[in-house]
């Protein structure tokens, strides 16, 4: 850690600290994790803000994400271009939201985006079907899946418009206290 001054300037580190839920040490740890993903790609000097992106194939192969059924969505949501290729900023953002300290609303916002497969700002029946399929590895029959989607919409759709808006989702998350601890990736 002795050479952290050469990786980031003091101001950069401070900005990262202010913009994420991490301490300096955790930021450095995350940086090294990031750098380890693509050592030949990521320079050890970030003082000049190089424009480096680690491709999704490498991000998705991290042990934290490797087996997550939603890894692709996570990478897409947190990458700026939506293609899953991540800059260091995106990377830090992702783990900041997934950290223990992030508040419920922030987590719910990103969880909503992750479950919103078609990016239309609503979780519709199609999104739900994809979610259920991912969650159960396709073990449920099509009829069961559609029944589940129907039930979920029944339960969570506050304004009965046939799909879940962010508000519906947040409202439902309020009733699921485990969400805070489960929407969490340890680093």
């Amino acid at each position, binding site marked *: 850690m002795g050479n952290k001054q050469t990786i980031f300037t003091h101001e950069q580190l401070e*900005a990262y*600290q*202010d*913009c*994420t*839920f991490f*301490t*300096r*040490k955790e930021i450095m740890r995350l940086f090294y994790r990031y750098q380890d993903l693509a050592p030949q790609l990521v320079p050890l000097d970030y003082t000049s*803000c190089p*424009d480096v992106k680690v491709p999704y194939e490498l991000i998705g192969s991290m042990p*934290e*994400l490797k087996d*997550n*059924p*939603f890894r692709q969505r996570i990478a897409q949501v947190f990458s*700026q271009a939506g293609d899953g290729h991540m800059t260091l900023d995106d990377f830090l*953002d992702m783990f900041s939201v*997934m950290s223990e300290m992030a508040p*419920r*609303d*922030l987590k719910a*916002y*990103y*969880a909503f985006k992750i479950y919103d497969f078609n990016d239309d*700002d*609503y979780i519709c029946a199609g999104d*739900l079907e994809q*979610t259920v399929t991912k*969650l*159960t*590895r396709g073990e*449920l029959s099509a009829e*069961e899946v559609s*029944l*589940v989607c129907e*039930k979920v919409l029944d*339960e*969570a*759709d*506050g*304004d*009965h*418009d046939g799909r879940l808006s*962010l508000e519906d989702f947040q409202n*439902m*998350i*309020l*009733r*699921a*206290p*485990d*969400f*805070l*601890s*489960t*929407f*969490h*990736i*340890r680093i």
Partner: protein
Amino acid sequence: MSAYYRGSSPGGNAGYPDYSGSPNRSQGYLKTQDYPDFSGPQTNPGYPSKRSNPFSAGSRTNPDHHGSLPEPDYIESQSNPYHPGLSREPDYPGSQQHPDFASPRSSGMSAVSRINPGYLGSLAEPDYPGAQDCSNHPGPRANASHPGSRRNLEYASSSINSYIDALGEPDYPGAENKTSSAYIWGEPDYPNAEDYRNAPKFWGEPDYPGDKNGPGYGSSETQEMIRVLSETSSTQHSFHCRSNGPLDILRRESEDYPGSIEMTSMEVAGPREPCLPGASGAGYVNPAYVGERGPVCAYGNLPLSECDWHKSPEGQKLIASLIPMTSRDRIKTIRNQPRTMEEKRKLRKAVDKERSKQCPQTLELRCCAQCLNSCSRGFRRSRNGVSELLNTTSLWQKTLKVIGGKFGTSVLSYFNFLKWLLKFNIFSFIVNFSFLVIPQLTVAEKNTLPFTGLEFFTGAGYFRDTVMYYGFYTNSSIRHGGSGISYNMQLAYLFTIGACLIICFFSLLFSMAKYFRNNFINPHIYSRGIAKLIFCWDFTVTHEKAVKLKQKNLSTEIRENLSEIRLENTKLTFHQQLTRLSAHVAAWLVSTGVAIACCVAVYYLAEYNSEFLKTHRNPGAVLLLPFLVSCINLAVPRFYSMFRLVERFELPRHQVYVLLIRNIFLKISIIGILCYYWLNIVALSGEECWETLIGQEIYRLLLMDFVFSLADSFLGEFLRRIIGKRFITSLGLQEFDIARNVLELIYAQTLVWIGMFFCPLLPFIQMITLFIMFYVKNVSLMVNFQPPSKAWRASQMMTFFIFLLFFPSFTGVLCTLAITIWRLKPSADCGPFRGLPAFIHSVYGWIDTLSGRPGYRWVVWIYHNLIGSVHFFFILTLIVLIITYLYWQITEGRKIMIRLLHEQIINEGKDKMFLIEKLVKLQDTEKRANPSALILERREVEQQDPFDLGEQAAVPDLRLRQSFQDDNSKA
């Protein structure tokens, strides 16, 4: 908006460096004379660059878009020969060209509006959703509706939004072509305008005079306009679903918020004003509108709004609201923004800049502020350092990650609880060690007792005369050298233990409150929770096998849930209900009976044991009682869990809770009976140094419990695995019983708290045992267990555990210690309190000595009037009761409110569905009635608007307009 100016030509930049920092920004928007330099911006060469700013910023890779120069397309539109004044127009083609124009924008918008509810009122524009809806109604500013649409349920549907979007789009190119008249231009643009001839007049003409004398432009006109609008809307039924809403809202807005009238009127006028030759010919453009324009087009544009977000009004508002905050709150708010790092960083920078600008002008004050600033920064840095230091001691980071990855959050919660208790004990140990043990060690006498090794188990013998037990501590004041400073051991003992317990109390209370807050936000709506199953995927699980297993378990659980839903209506017969009920009653009777029998057994054994020990000299004999207690603790909970073979619960959660209640009843009553025995029999028996005896007993209990847990982990769980794997394979691997394990931890912690007074080093012992337990349980878990098959309500259980730790356990400890300190007579020959009639008398004596010294009168006064006064506590209790009652009432009121709001949401949803239905129906009839006109219109749209990506959105809009006309003509 300030950024908008800042990003403009260098001249403008220099002219308005402080603009964004002006505290009365909202006023600045209301009064246009604030920007004299901006009159006639269309002749300002800097203007195009200003325009281009947001757009060029659309490219994410351009970090410094401030300096970016006009892009060609804007210049082009700028050079439109017909419209010298149409410098603003590039907005619209520009925004239309953006591929993201139609739908995805709303995502950015929703983000903006979602995070901003707290800042209503700082700026005018987005404050009133209605106002925005109104502004989009006139047309070009259609995209501005998005922020509002989130809050405005009628417009939440994106399809409706896209109509509104589309409404403006085709008209702009039209406006370019039709240079001659505002009226011609205005007609196709505004359906109302077309239908109600008074409307275009009103919107076209009177606006602009008003426009020119910017600040005076205002309320009366708006009132009038609103009246007209409301007239139009009230007579127009078929159009109801779309136009009436915003108009209505506008009307309501202006009635409700007189202050907003000016704003809304500007909103209305702003978008149309640039397109009017009258306005441009006059060479005067109300700068306020120019100001309005930038941010609005920033809205319209997704890439733009992402990158330049902090320059948009939302961002500006956020910045404005951030400025007065303390640095801590500010960082918190910035962190909580759902935006990318880049934006957050820019936001932070912008806020810092604003703050530095806002510094008071006078030199002294600035100096002061700088000093304060640097102080606070230094403080923040040091606090960061401290928190980092604390985090470095965060133990087992990696182990916990592995456990979470393999077993999920629920099992992890046990280990987190263990870690939490460990921290507690470390803290208690540090306090006790530094304030009791170290002073005592400086005056320690030589220990002459022999050490054999058995003492580790019995805690007696050699250890009796060490700092471990109460009896060893001196009752004199410790004095070193000639300094005259003395250390009163009596007071130190009492206050250290007291402080320790008080701090434990508060940290328990706060963590309990935190858990309650997180978990019981909305306790009275619990649904069956299939949604929770779906959306609460455990992201902590990273192990491949565990993920597969979890997916499998989840699908079974979903299936079960579904079958439950299907079978929901099958009622139990009376006979079945009766059997169930009788099974419950029997189980409760048996469990309570067993618990009482255990207590009685422990009590008589303890009594008998003391007799027995007097005659028996074997030092190992003292282990009998702890052994028996640990046996009970080991066997009876397993016996209880066998009840589940007979008892049937509808929900597995109920079973867990019932089991927990029975277990905690057993454990706490055993501890209670032991306390009774210690305080009423041991303490009054006249033994020499009974406090040390109690301390030893607790030590033995704790140690025996630890040994049993170890044995259980190594032998019991291991054997169970062998049996499950080799012999009775149908049993399979066992699951980690979180409830039982947590209860064991709670039991041990209760003992530690009770024993802390008699054995100040007990937290140290517990620290070591917990440390070892962590590793043992970890190894056992990895080897012997499989991940839980049910989704476990881990966090709710955590709340329950901490509550249990607080309520029977910690409060019981407080009662026991209070009785000890106030009622019991300390032993005569040992310990710090020897010779006193009660422990508390040391405090009385101290107060007496203090009252002799004039400098300490206030301590005495506080003691007599507050701590020692019954009246004070009586009044305090009364006040607390009153406050509690009031809060309870408030809670009741809130509950009603929540219910009403919930109903309202449902009603709004129904309204929306109804309106959409009606709209669709209308479109259908319309299509049938007049297909040719529609096609014509559509062609027109395509010609004029080649970039329109929201075409399909535009078409329904046109249909709508068509229907509008039809209705009108029929009328």
